[in-house]
């Protein structure tokens, strides 16, 4: 009989014990798999979000960051200049503020919303039109056309054509601007809208009008889309923008990712590393203990096999196969269990305020499976080392004598 066959019979001889051991490996393996998904999940998901928005370069004020974006003077003329650069497809202005939205039929207390100003009327980039019309590229002065998110539309019972009053506040002042009446042109999904947030988007002119002033060419950020079919267009466009306005920060998607990776996402990477290590240590200890106890129970059997002429190599192979079977079956079962668990854990973490609704903490990548298999294999092999040493170094005659006497 092969070492594999012998290992299978040993495991099958104690079904309750084996099922429990496999169940333990499955649960611990599922946790390990989830931690591997978590280690890069935010990065992968955020990268997808950035790429889906369709922009390669972001321009912000020098003293700002992607989170804190002071207004940039002359942003509109900069966007025009950027749009004329070779290899640039389009440049979009973005500004944001907080406002109170009041539906005429609702209470006067209103709903706090994020007001987004953009000159990008195209659907499919930062927003996807669900119903109604996109923002007009040109509107009469003082007109405030808006797109609202489906959540806000449901909360305030809005539809295309509805009126919506907006109240904005003067920064650094304990007073509010007069109510501005906007009209809803459509309902749109916003890529970066958080689960606990309501978003309203308007044109840059509408944004200025809501603030009670004419368009002044100020924006928080310029988003730039380059021609990805031309190699090096992103780098050359970034360099050209930096030359146009050396006082601003020009960030590629990679640099934005690096910023978030260094700061906002690092906690989850660290926690996943710590939990993965602990999970592996835990699995190692438990498999090693199970195999050691199993060997201790079968000392007589092992000594008898050795006395019959079984080489040490076969005894070692038998124990190694036992470990491989327990860890292998448990590790495989851990994948679907881990996937289910990841859905639950992801749902918990996405309740965090301010997290974009489309951002996920646990994201599947093929490398996670490869790492999972590699780490569990190494753990299984290491866990079998001590029991193998115990079984192969067994004094045959003394063990047999002790077994007969007992």
């Amino acid at each position, binding site marked *: 009989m092969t070492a594999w066959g012998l290992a299978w019979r040993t495991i099958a001889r104690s079904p309750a014990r084996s099922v429990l051991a496999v169940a333990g490996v*499955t649960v611990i393996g599922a946790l390990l798999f989830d931690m591997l998904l978590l280690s890069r999940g935010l990065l992968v998901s955020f990268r997808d979000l950035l790429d889906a928005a369709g922009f390669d370069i972001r321009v912000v004020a020098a003293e700002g960051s992607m989170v804190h974006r002071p207004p940039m003077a002359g942003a509109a003329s900069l966007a025009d200049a950027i749009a004329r650069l070779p290899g640039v497809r389009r440049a979009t202005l973005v500004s944001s503020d907080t406002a109170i939205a009041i539906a005429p039929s609702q209470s006067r207390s209103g709903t706090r919303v994020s007001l987004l100003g953009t000159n990008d009327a195209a659907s499919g980039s930062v927003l996807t039109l669900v119903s109604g019309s996109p923002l007009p590229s040109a509107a009469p002065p003082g007109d405030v056309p808006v797109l609202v998110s489906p959540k806000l539309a449901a909360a305030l019972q809005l539809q295309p054509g509805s009126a919506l009053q907006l109240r904005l506040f003067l920064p650094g002042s304990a007073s509010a601007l007069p109510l501005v009446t906007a009209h809803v042109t459509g309902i749109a999904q916003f890529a970066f809208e958080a689960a606990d947030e309501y978003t309203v988007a308007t044109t840059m002119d509408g944004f200025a009008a809501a603030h009670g002033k004419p368009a002044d060419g100020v924006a928080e950020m310029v988003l730039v889309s380059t021609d990805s079919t031309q190699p090096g267009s992103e780098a050359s466009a970034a360099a050209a923008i930096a030359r146009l306005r050396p006082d601003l920060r020009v960030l590629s998607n990679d640099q934005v990712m690096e910023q978030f990776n260094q700061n906002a996402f690092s906690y989850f990477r660290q926690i996943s590393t710590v939990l993965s290590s602990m999970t592996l240590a835990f699995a190692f200890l438990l498999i090693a203990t199970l195999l050691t106890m199993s060997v201790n129970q079968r000392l007589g059997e092992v000594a008898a096999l050795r006395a019959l002429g079984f080489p040490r190599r076969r005894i070692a192979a038998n124990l190694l196969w036992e470990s491989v079977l327990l860890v292998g079956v448990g590790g495989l079962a851990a994948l679907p269990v881990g996937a289910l668990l990841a859905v639950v*854990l992801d749902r*918990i973490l996405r309740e965090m305020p301010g997290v974009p609704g489309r951002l996920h903490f646990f994201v599947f990548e093929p490398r996670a499976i490869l790492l999972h298999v590699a780490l569990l294999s190494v753990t299984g092999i290491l866990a079998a080392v001590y029991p193998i040493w115990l079984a192969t170094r067994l004094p045959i005659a003394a063990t047999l004598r002790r077994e007969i006497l007992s």
Partner: protein
Amino acid sequence: MSGLNRGRASAFAAALLIAVALPAATAPASAALPPILISRQLAERDHLRPGDIVTMALDATGSGSRQFRVEGTYEPTPDPVRFTARRLEARVHLPELVAMTEVSGDPASADSLTAINVKLTNPSNADAFSAAVASRAPGVFARPTARAKDGSDPFAVLERFHVAVAAVTVLGSTAFLLALMVMRAEERRETIGIIRLIGISERSILLEVLAEGLLIATAGAVFGIVLAIATQGLVNQFFQWRYDTALVFVRVTRAIALQSIAVSVPLGILAGLVGSWTLLRRDVLALLGR
């Protein structure tokens, strides 16, 4: 914000400003300069010491720049919301900050600030106070500092995540514990057969298993807590080093220790009982292999 008596403002205003250290020798009248406190992180980065003269400005072009004398350094109050951020901060007296930020021709700018911290006589009135401020001062957002009761703050979410991970770990370790207990019971099959053969009742054996389980589970739980207490310093040191913060990440509290015991001891006893139960319901002769 209108109405604030700046002369009586005792608080320091923290500002993220651009600091340029100047050699102390270039400023003979340094004692006359207003004092500034520098965060430990900023002091380390720019090699600042008490007595140094620094120029603070609102932006890289040097607008609103003023000179200060470094009075000392301070450890920023740990902020869990910003623990990944580098705390490059400085504190000056509020009038000094207002003097830097005020805009000529805008009298309101000299009477403006970002936030006011309010300590209420009765903290339970925080919600009512916030509502009153919001209704009287449009544009002012008043928020209680206490954690949201609906469990929506980031730490409540993180706590739920950690509890879920802990529950999965307990589930996995219970399966392993059961496997070990089943093996242990198998080891003692013959012993239990003999004990039952000489007339010891199943109830007595069960009680013995219960006592043994209680002892082992308690010892395991206590060992686990001691291990957690011993290693919490290492975990804290690692994360404090990684994020350059004084924030405490792990703290084994009495409540957590009791919670661990409350979960692990019954589980340990249960695993022991389940493992032994398979032997107790078997025939005595079968236990002895007859």
